[in-house]
């Protein structure tokens, strides 16, 4: 089963990377969004392999099922076409950003490969079923939980205020 685990990891990891690359390659935002959905789905499987089944489920339901739908919805609403290649733009992003990003990731990769030991995790190493996650979430992390709830409330109100015409019913734009 070990090999199966590794194989599954590699397969879905490849799917993840492919999705990410596609996200970059596609020039149409909706394709990017969908490829991100693919990435999320594959990540959910990775979570399952790690045993975090509840996380995986929430990943699918909340992330892929709600947030990304919101993205797609907005893309449809604005009917965003393929992005136009404006000249000028930011050369800094190319000159500084890309090398910086590459350098940073190279450093991180080097550290991971050399200093993080060779500890391995078996499939389902840490069973994160709702029954195990719930106590943690509602006892130890109760305060953050409530705070995030308030955050969400504020975010909803802010979204309504931002996205609504002064003379229109906010509900339609909120979704």
């Amino acid at each position, binding site marked *: 089963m070990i090999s199966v685990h590794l194989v599954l990891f590699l397969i879905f990891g490849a799917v993840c990377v492919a999705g990410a690359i596609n996200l970059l390659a596609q020039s149409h935002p909706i394709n990017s969004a969908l490829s991100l959905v693919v990435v999320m789905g594959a990540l959910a499987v990775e979570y399952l392999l790690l045993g975090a089944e509840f996380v995986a489920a929430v990943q699918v339901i909340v992330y892929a099922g709600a947030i990304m739908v919101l993205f*797609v919805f907005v893309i449809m609403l604005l009917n965003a076409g393929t992005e136009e290649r404006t000249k000028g733009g930011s050369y800094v992003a190319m000159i500084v950003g890309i090398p910086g990003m590459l350098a940073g990731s190279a450093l991180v990769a080097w550290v991971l490969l050399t200093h993080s030991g060779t500890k391995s995790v078996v499939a389902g190493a840490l069973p994160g*079923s709702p029954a195990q996650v719930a106590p943690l979430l509602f006892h130890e992390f109760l305060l953050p939980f409530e705070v995030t709830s308030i955050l969400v409330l504020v975010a909803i109100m802010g979204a309504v205020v931002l996205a609504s015409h002064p003379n229109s019913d906010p509900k339609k734009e909120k979704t």
Partner: protein
Amino acid sequence: MGIGTFILVSVVKIAVALFVLLTAVAYTVWLERKVVGRIQNRWGPTRVGPFGLLQPAADGIKFLFKEDLTPPHVYKPLYIAAPVIAVVFALTSIAVIPVGNWVNVGHIYTPLQITDVNIGLLIVLGITSLGVYGIALSGWSSNNKYSLLGGLRASAQMISYEIALGLSLVGVLILSGSMSLREIVQAQSGHFLGFIPNWNIFRGGQFVAFFIYLMAAYAETNRIPFDLPEAETELVAGYHTEYSAMKFAMFFMAEYANMITVACLAALLFLGGWSGPVFGPDILQAILPVFWFALRIFIFLFIYIWVRGTLPRFRYDQLMSFGWKFLLPLAIANLVITALVVVLKG
């Protein structure tokens, strides 16, 4: 059992489940036409076969051989992908639905269920929530204002009602203390007060939740009275205006498959699953629960059709305000009360 047998059994189960499901879909369509016909004082399909029983097959063949034309201005990749997505997700969710007890076929002891995961319910919810993409993308990619409006409506409506749907199920989860559909069903076994079955709708007092679930399920499946995405009178056919032939059939299948899925969930969560009087020889003991389960599904679907034949359509803002201002608070209240009861009973 070894991995080989595991894979074999899985494949067999998948094939059977798909066959049964698609057949059910086809005959749900037939059933609907018949029942609505009777409600509207018509006969419905009668020509093909006895009582028009072969009508679904005829429709299928028609869909298959009809010209599959693609309008010029559509965004092709998604236009093609959308129905596939819709039908795939609709069919996938059947994978975790148990239809009966464990059975012993030959010397293989296996559940009547493709796979039993302990978060089955969550998986179902997730997959159905992904089903939105099919409709939304179809609406958008077909580059047609009717379709776009339909798609927007559909996605907004489905996201809104998902919340009420999920919250209405939480009460059941609290009662049964598990997310595995099988365990939920087992938690509803037995009777109380001598004869009343131990179903959540009775015992757990989840009839409010059941009502909410019913409403939300209609909305989720874009059925009357919430079928605004495909409101013929205003949007021609909504998101699948531009679709024809097999693609259209895929949306059709997806819709009815979703109906069956929600029916299964309703049966499993509220109506005690496949529990029922079991007697007779082993084979009968194996079959009877499936029968009881199918019966519940049939009743549920009948209500679906009945409602369709009866009720008019909502207005869109009515739909939204109904979902957000009525169902959602009701579901939350039900959740809180259930939780309190469970805590107080210890």
